[in-house]
């Protein structure tokens, strides 16, 4: 609703902060019950928070999570549940890595190579999600099922293609198997941070741009309006001239295209090839991050950073002797308590709003009026 009164800000902050404190308490409780020290845990985490490398890694992880979250959110905004981001980005990363690493690319100018790689990834992601969209609009197949199936099929397809007989090669002296590594000109150099051996993915700016575009399209364009309308009420959308089928196709394609980007920072900024150990499962994290950030461009950014940070503190916890599962538990508890907190605050807001309407209509009688 975009009102920035003091109360709105306080309410807006109360939910996430309260929830964070609440989840911290729960985790402290679990740790104490199992004979671990919460204080040491906090120490380890704050030590991690002061280490530039952890912060850089957190930012980098958050970048990919954020892209995945935006991909999921585009669907969520119109009640489409794209569980398939995971398969989409893996297939996209694998095929675009093949393209980027291909020998003929070596002679092309750097900018062109990178652009082609990224576009290829977006196209592959969109094509894969497009299958789900096609099945939905022509045959009414629930996108929940089709994307679950397509995730698995993507896995088999990738492992079929990632084979020395096809698109990949054995890594010399290793048990790994990867696409042909991208040579110098096809990479995107990271930003050096003093005190950290890791570099910040330059494609963090891509994520920022995607977030900005997401916000802009959603709030400032006709398309975004129609997307939101469809999500709020399919029947109202139809009555107001929105072609829901087209919206399903467009938003699935956009979601898939953004999903295609998920693997790019890692591919172009660190791995330079798609190999067996290319990170998997980011699509599912994206769902959690999108939900936690309430599909809001800034909210998701905060959620992605938090998630990335928690992920990257696991090593420090391990060093401190705290079971790393506590991080996962904390992530789960945070999601739940944040949404519970938001729900409680939302109820409070609705009441307040009705109160306001009631007063404006002059229907409200104060107790004194009633008794007099």
């Amino acid at each position, binding site marked *: *609703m*975009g*009102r920035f009164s003091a109360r709105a800000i306080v309410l807006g902050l109360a939910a996430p902060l309260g929830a964070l404190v609440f989840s911290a308490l729960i985790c402290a409780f679990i740790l104490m019950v199992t004979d671990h020290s919460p204080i040491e845990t906090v120490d380890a985490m704050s030590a991690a928070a002061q280490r530039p490398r952890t912060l850089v890694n957190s930012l980098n992880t958050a970048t990919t999570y954020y892209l995945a979250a935006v991909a999921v959110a585009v669907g969520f905004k119109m009640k489409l549940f794209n569980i398939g981001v995971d398969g989409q980005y893996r297939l996209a990363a694998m095929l675009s890595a093949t393209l980027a690493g291909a020998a003929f690319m070596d002679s092309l100018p750097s900018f062109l190579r990178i652009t082609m790689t990224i576009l290829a990834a977006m196209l592959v992601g969109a094509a894969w999600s497009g299958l789900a969209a096609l099945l939905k609009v022509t045959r009414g197949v629930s996108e929940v099922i089709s994307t679950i199936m397509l995730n698995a099929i993507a896995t088999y397809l990738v492992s079929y293609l990632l084979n020395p007989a096809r698109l990949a090669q054995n890594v010399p002296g290793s048990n790994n198997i990867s696409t042909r590594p991208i040579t110098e000109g096809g990479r995107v150099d990271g930003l050096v941070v003093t005190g950290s051996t890791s570099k910040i993915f330059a494609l963090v700016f891509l994520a920022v741009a995607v977030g900005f575009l997401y916000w802009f399209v959603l*709030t*400032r*364009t*006709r*398309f*975004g*309006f*129609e997307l*939101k*309308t469809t999500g*709020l*009420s399919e*029947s*109202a959308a*139809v*009555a*107001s*001239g*929105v*072609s829901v089928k087209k919206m399903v196709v467009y938003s699935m394609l956009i979601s898939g295209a953004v999903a295609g980007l998920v693997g790019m920072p890692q591919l172009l900024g660190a791995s330079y090839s798609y190999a067996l150990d290319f990170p998997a499962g980011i699509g599912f994290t994206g769902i959690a991050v999108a939900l936690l950030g309430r599909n809001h461009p800034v909210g998701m950014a905060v959620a992605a950073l938090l998630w990335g940070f928690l992920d990257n503190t696991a090593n420090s916890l391990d060093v401190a002797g705290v079971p790393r599962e506590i991080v996962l538990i904390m992530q789960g508890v945070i999601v739940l308590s944040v949404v519970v907190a938001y729900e409680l605050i939302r109820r409070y807001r*609705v*009441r*307040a*709003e*009705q*109160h*306001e*309407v*009631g*007063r*404006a*209509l002059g*229907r*409200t*009688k104060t107790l004194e009026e*009633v008794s007099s």
Partner: protein
Amino acid sequence: MATQDTGEPGGHPAVELTGITKRFPGVIANSDVNIAVQPGTVHALVGENGAGKSTLMKILYGMQRPDEGTIFVGGQPVAFTSPADAIKAGIGMVHQHFMLADNLTVLENVVLGNEPRSGPGLDFDTARRRIREISDNYGLNIDPDDLVDDLGVGARQRVEILKVLYRGARTLILDEPTAVLVPQEVDELFGNLRELKAEGLTILFISHKLDEVLSVADEITVMRRGTTVASVLPKDVTARKLAELMVGSALPVPELRESTVTDRPVLEARGLTVTSADGRKLLDNVSFTIHAGEVLGIAGVEGNGQAELVETLMGIREPASGTVHLAGKDITRMSTKHRRESGMGYIPEDRHRQGVLLEATLWENRILGHQTRKPNARGLLLDRRGARADTQRIVEEYDVRTPSIDVNASALSGGNQQKLIVGREMSSKPDVLIASHPTRGVDVGAQAAIWDHVRRARAEQLAVLLISADLDELIGMSDTLAVILRGAIVAHYDPATVTPEELGSAMTGAGREG
């Protein structure tokens, strides 16, 4: 099975509510309400939208708990914590909105919460027998094994009554049971009510249709702003007097003063036929022409193809055959969006489902359906400032009561939501307005305002297709009347001469063209 009536009549009212107060956040729905209902009578409750009638009845039925006050049933004070308690005390309620699960059978809907058992299972045979019995006894004509989805409104209404009777209720609450019925169905219902009354049952009856109230009630209580303002006998009042008690002012009348009909056809339907997935004809060769400045009223029992007609005209549904022309141009294959851009305005029948986005602000709702046009859009971008300014204008011109244009539509009452919709559709200066039940569930003030706006636009050459269940509105607001029955137009009437009864019998297929 529920117990029978708790107390002996012995001079006590069947139910009595004393000093009932109920507050909602920001609203006092009931304040110090007192009503006594004598056993074996029909007691009517009237009042404008939001007067607190439904809330009071929900309190009596245990769905809401009063903040203050006491309920007596048969002279005994009771405290209901859930409808189950009220049912036990012999109270049953038919709600303003149907309370039916469409995907369950009539039997399942009826016995829910009060199932006959055999062992751990539901005793379907006993249930079926009992329902048939009740249906036969009161002439309700209900088959327990029908799926509720397949039933029309009238039948659903009867299922609701059956549900109450099945529970052995001695006191029946009917919240606006006639809103969706045609006169013949209303008569049937009233026949049923009289029969029930004759058996000693007590009936609490809510309606906005004052002549109905006068014809069926033994006693009438009027509510205004949450309190009872009068209790009268039908013989002592007229409809006009009742309305004044309700609102403190005169009742508006739907009427068109002078004809503005021209001979310029604006919207033409030719041979429209629509079939369902399983091959039934939902619309059967429907043809008509609406001219500039003309209001064509369509009368019909709900579910006879009105919704399909409107959807076909708006491009939401594709006809199997037939064409639609707008100002001479064939628009049969045109998309909804394009039709709207070409000058079609649309007030949908279900405002919550089709008319507004409840979880969006008023100014966003202003954009809805007009997202491609000024003042809401510039090219591919939204013009937020333009939309907001225009929303402010609508709020003022159409008297939408709201603290600001930034609140969600869900915070507005139905009448105010409807005024916003009408204002929105009128602002684009359409050539044709498809208006489905434009004043349904809207209070008298808002109703008058909406009629006024339609009249004014008609004077400026607007062509209107008006669909309404309110026959007075149809007759009063139309230049031409057509009756739709089972998807076909079966009769035409001149609104100047037709009576609601004539119309009603044509709608049910009883009468033929006059």
